[in-house]
């Protein structure tokens, strides 16, 4: 994937989580609170999220960084940094 925007990263994240938890309205999930509880995903789901993000965005996410993927907001921030997005978008 070439240069991406925060908006695109958010859309990929929504797509990946939506595939795992289709019944959840991600726009209703509190962006600054841990999403694993809110979306009810376990470690298998989470690993699948990481794998899908890797496939779609081409970023490697070391296990040591999993803690940075706690909330939707921090996940977008983390992925944006890994993808080299510099603008602090106002999409949230």
């Amino acid at each position, binding site marked *: 994937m070439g240069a991406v925007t925060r908006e695109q990263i958010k859309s990929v994240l929504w797509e990946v989580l939506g595939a*795992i*938890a289709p*019944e959840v309205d991600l726009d209703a999930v509190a962006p600054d609170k841990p999403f694993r509880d809110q979306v*009810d995903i*376990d*470690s*298998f789901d989470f*690993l*699948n999220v*990481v*794998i899908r993000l*890797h496939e779609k965005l081409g970023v*490697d*996410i*070391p*296990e*040591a960084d999993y803690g940075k993927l706690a909330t939707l907001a921090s996940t977008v921030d983390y992925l944006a940094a890994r993808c080299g997005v510099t603008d602090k978008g106002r999409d949230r």
Partner: protein
Amino acid sequence: MGAYEFRMPSLGADMEAGTLVEWQVKPGQEVKRGQVVAVVETQKGAIEVEIWESGTVERIVVGPGQKVPVGALLATLTTVGEAPSRPPIAPAAAAPIPTAAPAARPRPAPAAPRARISPAARKLAEELGIDIARVEPGGPDGVVSREDVERAALAMKPAPAAKAAAPEWHAQMRRAIAVAMARSKREIPHYYLGTEIDMTRALTWLEQENAKRPVAERALYAVLLVKAVALALREVPELNGFFTDGEFRPGPGIHVGMAIAMRGGGLVAPAIHDADRKGLNELMADLRDLVTRVRGGRLRSSELTDPTITLTNLGEQGVETVYGVIYPPQVALVGFGKMTERPRVEAGGTSSRRMVNATLAADHRASDGHRGALFLAAVGRLLQEPEKL
């Protein structure tokens, strides 16, 4: 040349009937042992049913959309005469309720007004929301028993076609769980043991391993638990198997049933076959495949009938200790709680360790606390040498 009768399998202690959804073979077609030949709708969703004989399909007896009891003839096969190749597994696991013939179908009209009903049956019917007047007695004495109510509860649903609507499906699954768990608590004299296991070494080792791997090949610590449990069962085999017809029957292999929660409620515990003989990578691949199919696709019949023990890992939900209910006719369930950092005092100093509470719920008819304790100790010991798992 011989003949083989392919029948509706029992896919667990809680199944009495299934609806044939589709055939994946047709008359005249050759089939191989282990091949998926049909899809059957059960309370646990659509299950791919394998056949355990090779040959040529002669006749299809039950068509799509038909609901038939466990044991009903589905199709006939012409075989080439080799010996039946999967003898001990299916019978042991697949006939958990001593086969009291599929008698108690719910009837369209109320039963005779003076049917005799045992108090226990009446109570269970109330618990399960079954109209007792519609339950027929299964035994020769003409008395409606608890077992009759259980069968009626399971057969009550009027054959949902291929895919029941979600709320309906969840209601069916709740009923299946209710029957199996009520039977477990009624029949199995559980004993419970618990211990703390130091996971520090195992987790550190796994983190180092995962750091070397691409994301798609990383393992979760659950596979360490599966492997340690499987190996410990070799040392204490009386926890691995079934209690049927009044006696313990050892499992034909170590097939660990992994309790997997389903989105929206309910759970299934399909088997990871021969878990003691698989490496961690293979176990991880199996586990990912199972979780994916539980949540989105289909399980195979052997995965539901074969587990010889159940493992449940509820740590992610924040609980520290699991007090399990055994899934009959299995004789044990191993539970793991949340990984927590705890202080350990040793040789006058303290250190921080990552610990997990492991518990065993076991059937006292099949084993005693002493053996159960040895099992948990073995699990703890094996987890201290993760590189050997």
